[in-house]
């Protein structure tokens, strides 16, 4: 009930919950890089931002990317600093990681490993989902 909410919580309730679902691999298309740009801008607004890496999106977080040979900017380092931008959760789908022969230690940054089943209710609670 509204009367019981303390102001801070009420203000949390007013925030829009954004979830970025990063499903695509880096470099093959511009999608994840452009998704990252949106996250960085959106972080300046006082909203709730979550990110889920799943499917080939987990490759975005692979350590040791070196893009000199294909002559494009390496944007993977930016994923590393996301935690400083007030992202609420950075989830990585465990099965996507395992299917691709990757371990948590292969990743650029600390994340929360999750199973897709655990994400079902979480996804339902989001207001806006942005796929990249």
């Amino acid at each position, binding site marked *: 009930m509204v009367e019981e909410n303390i102001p801070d919580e009420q203000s949390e309730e007013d925030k829009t919950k954004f979830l970025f679902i990063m499903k695509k691999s880096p470099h093959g298309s511009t999608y994840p890089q452009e998704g990252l740009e*949106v996250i960085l*801008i*959106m972080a300046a*607004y006082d*909203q709730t931002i979550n990110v889920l890496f799943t499917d080939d999106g987990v490759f975005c977080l692979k350590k040791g990317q070196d893009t000199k040979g294909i002559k494009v900017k390496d944007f993977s380092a930016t994923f590393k600093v996301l935690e400083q931008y007030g992202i609420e959760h950075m989830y990585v789908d465990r099965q996507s990681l395992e299917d691709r022969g990757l371990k948590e230690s292969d990743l650029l940054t600390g994340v929360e490993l999750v199973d897709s089943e655990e994400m079902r209710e979480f996804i339902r609670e989001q207001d806006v989902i*942005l796929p990249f």
Partner: protein
Amino acid sequence: MKFGVMILEGPYQHQASDSAYNFVESALKKGHEIAGIFLYTDGVENATSFMTPPQDDRHISKRWAELIQKNGIDTIVCIAAGKRRGITEANIIKGARISGLGQLTELGINADRLITFGD
């Protein structure tokens, strides 16, 4: 209800632009409001005024221009994506404007729904 729409692919190559158009048209017909259309990545190509498709094909940028002007839909070409793809003030359709990703954020906050069409 207020819908926001993001389009991530250009005209003709993928179906995304056609799907978005048909969706928006139906939403308006059913009395919903389109709070904004945000063109991002290749989606910005939908806004080129230089397009001249064959007469027996749909004219994608022209029909967008007509729809957004007739219904007063705020339509935004992402400035960074537009610069990379050559969509500027010199070749943008009437009714669309160039702005930044903050507009997408505000659309996400203000619209009741945000739906993305892409590939």
